[in-house]
């Protein structure tokens, strides 16, 4: 039934199918053979990671369109097609997904309770998430979007903590309720398109260039999509499921949730909301940015008063995702770049933090900040890792968190100065709550159980180290990442400008620096010179050059 249209190896399908093959293989292993299950799970996730790495290797830099596109017929009677494709916006999410899952399995080496089912759930989850980031047919996307729910629901509900049932139900119902209206919107969009053009399709590439949607309809459809994605992100005030889900989920579940599943929401904004309903997005953008800013401040303030370490990180996620939201809806090149980069950075930093809190919980069976103290002396390596992860999360220059947030704020500043100013306060608050927590947990003299808590093992270091190293690499040299993001962001913004009355605010001359070297002083000196070589083509290069100049400068 699936007639191939392209002759090449279906790399993107392989990304979706490989974890599924692993899950099927595991299903046939006896449930007492945990070691074999573990090996299969690891194998499947490492193969997927290798495929994601190969995708990154083969990805054509400088091409803003979709690559590796697979377009096959799926359900002709309903106009559904099986379309997968990757571009600069989804590339990094795919790579992040590929990276996280082997680490998740590595971190679950001590989990023996119903491990078989755990592995199957995780692998189905991985396949679903890959599908979400790759699908270009709206209904196919929706299918993957929903598929992800079940394994996550089981992960929280079975392997979670005390209030896991409540948290699992809340997670499921929130997300399903959010996406219900999106399904209605998808159908409406498809049929409005077919009634005008006579072609029934849910191919988002075709729907995005259609442009025949009445403005009032577009706004309603935009809102339906918005609710679905806003629940996922989550955007204030739809965030209340997140702290519960995070706190009750097992460590690995929290990692997947934070690292990749929240990104499904912001990715949805970029891929569908902006592309399909540009004018509506432009109209609503100021309001959404305000919500994003509220999320930043609210998340930070609530995080600051948490007594539970995991809940603190969960609320910090709300704040970080706020930066993605303001960056995205600033509708500027640096804003979108920053949003995508923050998605990636948050995936690395927050999962490192969740892993570390999980390790601590394994040792102490508590996450109460007040229960800890002086751990620096008993667990020096752990403390060091936690410190780096905290710094990265806070946005210390030189680590990935900074680059993304800086660019988001830069883009926001161009569009809405008040939002940018308010959001910047969030950066300071982040430093406040994370460092305060660090101080409580690690400094001072260890007492009671804190005196004999064993330090992290080599395996545990191996789980966190890749994340932190990548965070450092991206923080110091974000260019390779941005080079791949940029053309797609440009194409997206061009599309928005073309189909709406939006004019991207130009970068203020003072910040325009065009310099290939990373020397800061030179960068600043050349600011004036760069101003002279104007022209649109050069403009985009400027923002990258500027960024590269700014990062090491801040690090000093």
């Amino acid at each position, binding site marked *: *039934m699936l007639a191939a249209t392209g002759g090449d190896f279906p790399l993107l399908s392989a990304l979706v199918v490989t974890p599924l093959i692993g899950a099927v293989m595991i299903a046939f292993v006896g*449930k007492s053979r945990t070691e074999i299950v573990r090996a299969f799970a690891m194998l499947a996730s490492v193969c997927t990671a290798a495929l994601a790495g190969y995708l990154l290797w083969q990805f054509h830099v400088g091409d803003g369109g979709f690559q590796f596109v697979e377009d096959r017929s*799926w*359900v*002709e*009677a*309903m106009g559904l097609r099986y379309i997968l494709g990757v571009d600069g916006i989804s590339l990094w999410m795919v790579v992040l997904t590929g990276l996280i899952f082997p680490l998740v399995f590595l971190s679950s080496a001590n989990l023996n309770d*119903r491990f078989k*089912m755990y592995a199957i759930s995780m692998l189905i989850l991985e396949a679903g998430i890959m599908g979400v980031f790759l699908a270009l047919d709206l*209904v196919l996307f*929706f*299918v993957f979007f*929903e*598929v992800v*729910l*079940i394994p996550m*629901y*089981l992960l929280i*509900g*079975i392997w979670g903590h005390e209030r*896991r*049932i409540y948290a*699992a*139900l809340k997670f*499921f*119902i929130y997300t*399903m*309720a959010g996406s*219900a*209206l999106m*399904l*209605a919107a998808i*159908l*409406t969009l*498809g*049929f409005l398109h077919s009634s005008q053009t006579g072609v029934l399709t849910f191919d988002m590439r075709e729907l995005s260039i259609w442009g025949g949607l009445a403005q009032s309809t577009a706004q309603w459809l935009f809102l339906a999509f918005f609710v679905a994605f806003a629940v996922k992100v989550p955007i204030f005030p739809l965030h209340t499921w997140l702290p519960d889900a995070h706190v009750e989920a097992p460590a690995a579940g929290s990692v997947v949730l934070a690292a990749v599943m929240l990104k499904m929401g912001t990715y949805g904004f970029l891929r569908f909301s902006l592309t399909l309903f540009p004018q509506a997005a432009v109209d609503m953008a100021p309001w959404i940015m305000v919500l994003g800013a509220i999320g930043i401040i609210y998340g930070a303030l609530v995080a600051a008063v948490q007594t539970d370490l995991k809940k603190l990180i969960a609320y910090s996620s709300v704040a970080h995702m706020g930066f993605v939201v303001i960056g995205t809806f600033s509708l500027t090149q640096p804003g979108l770049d920053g949003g995508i980069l923050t998605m990636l950075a948050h995936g690395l930093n927050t999962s490192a933090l969740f892993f570390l809190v999980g390790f601590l919980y394994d040792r102490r069976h508590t996450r109460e900040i007040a229960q800890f103290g002086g751990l620096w002396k008993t667990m020096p390596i752990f403390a060091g890792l936690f410190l780096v992860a905290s710094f990265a999360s806070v946005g210390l220059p030189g680590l990935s968190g900074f680059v993304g947030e800086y660019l988001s704020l830069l883009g926001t500043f161009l569009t809405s100065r008040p939002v940018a100013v308010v959001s910047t306060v969030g950066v300071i608050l982040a430093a406040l709550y994370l460092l305060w927590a660090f101080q409580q947990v690690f400094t001072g003299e260890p007492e009671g159980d804190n005196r004999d808590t064993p330090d992290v093992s080599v395996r545990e270091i191996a789980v966190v180290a890749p994340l932190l190293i990548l965070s450092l690499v991206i923080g110091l040299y974000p260019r390779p990442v941005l080079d791949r993001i940029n053309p797609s962001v440009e194409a997206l913004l061009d599309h928005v400008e073309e189909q709406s009355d939006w004019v991207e605010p130009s970068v203020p001359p003072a910040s325009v620096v065009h310099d290939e070297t990373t020397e800061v002083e030179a960068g600043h000196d050349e600011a004036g010179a760069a101003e002279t070589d104007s022209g649109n083509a050069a403009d985009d290069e400027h923002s990258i050059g500027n960024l590269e100049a700014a990062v090491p400068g801040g690090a000093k």
Partner: protein
Amino acid sequence: MSALLSLADVEALPTPSFDWFGIAPPVILFATALVIILMVAYKHRLGLAPWLPLATTLVGIGIAAVYTVLSWGKVIDGGPYTTAGGLVDVDGMGIFFTAIVLICAAIGALVASDYLRRERLDQPEYFALMLCSASGMALMATAADLITVFLSLEILSIALYVLAAYRSSEEPSQEAGLKYFLLGSVASAIFLYGIALIYGAVGSTNLRIISDTPVDNVLYLAGISLLIVGFAFKIAAVPFHMWTPDVYQGAPTPVVAFMASGAKVAAFAAMTRTIVFAMNYTRSDWQPILWVLAVASMLVGAVSALTQSNVKRMLAYSSIGHAGFILIGLQLSTGDGVAATMVYLLAYAVMVLGTFGALTYLSGPGDRDTSFEDMKGLARRQPMMAALVAFFLFAQAGIPPSSGFMAKFGVFKAAADSESYALVIIGVLVAVIAAFAYLRVIVAMYFQDGDEDSTLGRVPLGLRVGVWAAAIFTLVMGVLPQFVLDLADRASVIL
């Protein structure tokens, strides 16, 4: 004298031509039932192997299935035709629904056989009654005359009344049978009254003639309303659903599997023919009624399912909700809507058979352990069965990849195509409420701890085959539904 002579003149008597080929499935099913009854009659003289009734039933269904497939080929190539003096329509839709009924009967029989052994109930009579009922369902799917609809409705119902009370030693089963019988008879009477009024208005009970006669008077409209009431009772649509929870809870679980799938499919098939096709020109009169029935069924089904503490009862409310979703497709009265209805019914029948089939095994000796309390910790005791039930429940909730999602998607798609956006929005939101009820079962099975040791024996072979077949179908139809959609599309062209 001359009058008597003319009566004796056999030549002059109008004998309708019977195309036995076209009406083979119901005839074969009924004949199989008779064979089984004969076996019982000679049981004491010849002895009766315990596997024989089930084997005979499956062979009968198999032969009927062969005829159904052949008949499908004939109709697709040569076009639909009417036979038995205009009482039976052999067309794509009828054959499609007949096929669903055969699936229901086959899986229903597989699931029931071990149940009967476990509960020490008589085997052959059960299968004979079930085949009788299935024959009524198959006939109902092809009925072309209100009289045929009524007759087949009675054939299928009376057998089901008995089946519902099959555990005659147990009070809940007796109560279920009696309740179903009393309310069902009233509904049949109302339905018959509706037929009478239609006959009074049109002058015929033939659906083709009814559809060609443009009448729109009070008599006719009253007739339609009464027919709708009769159908609404059979499909368990709100507000004619009161019997459903009690009957589903009290009746033996394999009977519920068969009843919830087959009876609903047959009633919807007849409803499509009678209301949507034959009375299409008055659709502006009955569409609002069906709209209200659909919305009320979806809402009441979903909300009431939330508060139940018994899984069978919860599933009864969920089947009421499903009736609402199916009514969306009918209410549109478009070709797309009918095709979506057919696909939904196929998906629904298989999911329900699977769910109740698994539950037949899990309910344990005495068929009692069906409360949420009994489901606790099931994932540890019975990992495979729990996983299957969970899959069926997710499918019923409409979560992809499952036939349940494709079915709901098809109905919503048809509704969006007719610009019934209100129905789409109500539908997707109700689906979320309904999902919550299914999730509660999964919570009990997977997230809560119960007894560690299972008192249940091995999963019997017949039940395992039936439930796994249902699960695989549900999954495949969720991933690659093209095949089924094509069939439904070709079958629904008669509108």
